[in-house]
């Protein structure tokens, strides 16, 4: 456990930080994996790491809506995974980035959740998230290139017995998803990074389809 100097974040602050991070990370993955032309990404800096962020309003809106939609569930601690699945033109999943989240806040009253303290402070979180971003930056060296004209989809998996996500007034409604959107055929796994914040643990890993290599040549 890193030494605690600054006051630790409470759970809701951590969730806010995570959502911010997820947005940056998603943009950056799209850039690194070349889902869109590099031109639509502009250089930015986050946690003192140079990253890329899309300038396309529709794409940005989609990502923002999804994350806004996750927020209430993340606060409740019922989100177990956030997927960024990359499809080839034939709609096979060739690659899937998984943000696996394990929160101890599932089923805890809101009042308690609000004030629950995590074990890390802002600078620790930033150090972690920085290493996530750096890992994303180098992950293409561990992955095979994607076939041209890929698309992506963001998916959320909930834990336990929560059948549907909390609906949010803003943004688009949730729709259930098909297994073909999620399942990677003959996958292999590349772990990227894990963050432990006490009440919440997050792991990022990539699953890559072995079929990809044969299809791209």
């Amino acid at each position: 456990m890193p030494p605690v100097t600054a006051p630790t974040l409470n759970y809701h602050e951590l969730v806010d930080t995570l959502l911010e991070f997820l947005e940056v990370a998603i943009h950056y993955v799209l850039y690194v994996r070349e889902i869109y032309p590099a031109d639509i990404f502009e250089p930015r800096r986050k946690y003192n790491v140079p990253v890329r962020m899309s300038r396309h309003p529709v794409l940005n809106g989609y990502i923002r809506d999804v994350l806004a939609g996750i927020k209430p569930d993340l606060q409740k601690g019922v989100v177990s995974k956030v997927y960024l699945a990359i499809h080839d033109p034939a709609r096979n999943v060739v690659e899937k980035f998984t943000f696996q989240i394990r929160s101890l806040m599932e089923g805890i009253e809101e009042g308690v959740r609000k004030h629950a303290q995590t074990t890390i402070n802002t600078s620790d979180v930033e150090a972690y998230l920085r290493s996530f971003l750096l890992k994303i930056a180098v992950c293409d060296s561990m992955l095979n290139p994607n076939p041209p004209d890929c698309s992506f989809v963001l998916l959320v998996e909930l834990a336990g017995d929560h059948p549907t996500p909390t609906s949010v007034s803003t943004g688009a409604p949730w729709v259930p998803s098909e297994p073909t959107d999620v399942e990677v055929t003959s996958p292999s796994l590349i772990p990227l990074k894990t963050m432990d914040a006490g009440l919440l643990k997050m792991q990022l890993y990539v699953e890559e389809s072995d079929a990809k290599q044969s299809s791209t040549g």
Partner: protein
Amino acid sequence: MAFPGGFREYMAVKRRKLEVQGQEIAATGSQSSVLTGLTLYFNGYTGSSDLTMIQFKELVLVHGALVRDKLEPDVTHIIATQMTDQKMRNLRKPVVKPEWLLDSIKRQNLLPWLTYRLYTDIAPSQQTLGGFFSGGTSQSRDQPSSTSTHGGEDELITSTKGSSEKQKMGTASEKPQIEHVDIGEEAIADEGEGEVESDVSESEDVRTRQGADPESEWVKANICTAPGFLQKFFASSRLHHLSTWKGELRDFVYRQGPRRRTNATAHSKRVIIHVDMDCYFASVALRDRPHLQSLPVVVAHSVGLAGRSTADVASCNYVARSHGLRNGMSLGRAREICKDLHVLPYEFEKYEACTKALYNVLLRQGDEVEAVSCDEAYVDITSLIKESGQEIQLAEKLRGEIFEVTGGCAASIGIGPNKLLARMATTRAKPNGVFQVKQEEALQFMEGQLVRELPGVGWVLADKAAKRNIKTCKDLAVLSLPRLQADFGPKTGSMLYNACRGIDMRPLENNPRQSVGAEVNWGIRFTTQDQVEHFIRELSQEINKRMKLASVGGKLLTVKAKKKRYKGEPQKFLGCGDCDNLSKSWNASNCINSWETIFRESYRLLCELQIEPTDIRGVGIHVSKLCSDSLPFPGHPVREQSFLNFEGAATDAQERNNPPPPKSDDNRKTLGEHKTTLSEYGINPEEIDLDVLKELPEEIQADLLPYLKARESHDRPLQINARAGCSSSTSTSKPSEGQPYDPSCLLPTASQVDPEVMKALPDEIRKDLEKAIGMRRGAAGRSIFGMRNAPRRGKILGKISPSKGQVQFQSRRQSITCKATPVPRPSPSLGGQSDFGSVRCMLEDWVSTRLPPTDDDVNAFLRYLESLVDEMELERLETLLKWFLCRVGVENSVINSKGKGNAEWSKVAEMLTTHVNEMVKKKYGCQIKGLCGLQR
């Protein structure tokens, strides 16, 4: 950005343009190809020839050389007329005078650049201008050729025939920084260990052999890998003693508590004296050998009979100085300069006694004393001066007292209104005198001083000043403050500005010790990693010993290492030579106070520096950020008590929890010893960590059980009972851990058992528990949602992939709404260590024993890997396992007599890989990419 492509592209374009220009010049006016193949870089002033820089460049261009505008990697030579030592060392390219080019062109023949080198420090193979740079790290060179005779017991007289040419020598700093044993300025010679060579010719023979053959027996017995090296090193290292004393003196003076303070109004009339013993070591030595009083005498390690000894002269008396000898000279050199030289050995105990006497006098007399070193101190005597004019009288009295208590060692005293002037006055006072600089004379006095004599001005700074034609303080005084600050940096600039005017506002102070550490830079010659490890282990123990002596702990661990930069051996015998200094530090969250911690972390840091064992020339470990609550007050009973207790508990707990094979024959404890009861270790039952307990062997667990029971029964309600009793209690962390040890307690309901914990339990216990709880396994339903661009078929699929391997209990958390905040689950730990670096160090220890692994250890490791899978630490798992496979692979390739052991390690590695792959597959639905068995 003015240029479209940014700075980098701008530079690239510029470079290209200049190259083309250069080619054009070369093509149009080509005169010869004398300089073909050279790529030159001009650094500053090109010398007194009447060519401008541009003309010069054109000249070399037309003679076939290439010119670079910046110092690029392909530059072969740097042309300069002046360059500082430091810069030249950093550049690491031949720095040549412009005359080389001019002469080469004139003769139409490329002359050897070596003869035109700017300075000669870089290639030590050159003998020509040797001995010019001394002090610090470079070595002075001694010309061989001498004859010697032998006489006396510990005095050895030799007559040396050699020119008595005077050399510019740096006085070796006799005042190193706090606790800092500097580079190996001393050679531990034969006499150092009390084995005086009986025969001179033999001794000489030995030395000659050493020079020629680094594999000699003497070398083997004296380098760092030899047993007892450290003890010997610290016993005979002058700098080590000096620095230790300094630390002790400071602590000693500090402990005297606040001294009589002069009040602020009298500040302008402060009277500070600087007391400095005259050639301390030599005069202590002569005290007991009055017959040598009028002869040249030096104190050094070696007798240097062979005339090429590289041991340093630590101190020489004034007779010797009149011959041109200086402190810090090499002994061989000294012998050449001075015939009839008497070399005396160190007598550290005597110096120590002398120093104590000196400080007692000073502390009794002065208002405030600042310890500088064992023979030097500042004393504030303001309150003793009733009227001006008394100072000299008082100083003489003090000198008399010192002479008496030290048994005849002379001290010189400088008097001044501040530390600087007092210090400068001392140089005038020497030898054996008093000199006073009054405030009104200050300016005049300082004008005559050389800049390099100022305290705080070293070689680098003096060189820099000399380059600007500043030699004396008078030159300095005409410069404005901003000018000085621009040239030398803000701090140094203002220091110089004040110093040359005799202004010094620094108060006398004794900062208590800032760090504890040790550095060894002599005799470091490793061949294998194991030797490095062993050495670090010993050094860590030494540091721990010192920390205990000073009753401190620290939070910052710094490892320094010297990496050699030369080929072969340095000039100084077994010295460190010209090295890159590397360092790395680690911030501990708790006070570092066990040698195991020091060892583990420093070894890790050293490994991270990635130096080949054969390239290491010096190692130092320092602990700083000393824990404030244990400032050096060794007399304080309470503090000492608590410190020691803590120490014991920490150390022993760590030792007990070390799972790497206890069978190795070094100092690891064997299992048998673990049976000792807790109280003997000073462990409070409170402190027993259940996670740690789990990892311990059965017998120990059994031993610990009574304590646990006692603890649970009286200080808090039994965890399990509390859980079972009220259904609204917390649902996390370690509900079942206490259980196996107390079968009578009530079992929690299924909903309250954390499946992760269950999985982590040993198999038998888990089975029992599962039976008891009536637990049912079942995969939980998952629902996955997308937005907008997901196809809308509207069916939620219960099980999409087998990846969600978590065991879920039916009706889990359905009805529970907890009031309390859940406790985070413990991070995975191996042998009580959850810090990843520590785990790895531990495993490194384990693997490097090369003994066949025991089943217990393998199981513990496997359980740790399992918990990494469960705890979402796949990245660590991958890193660790790949490292392990690699390590085992490497061990395999080492040809070893214990071939059997290696095969077993491979088997273990294969087993672990298979098992981990299965686990990951079960939990995540696929295997980790590229994780397969041993790389063969």
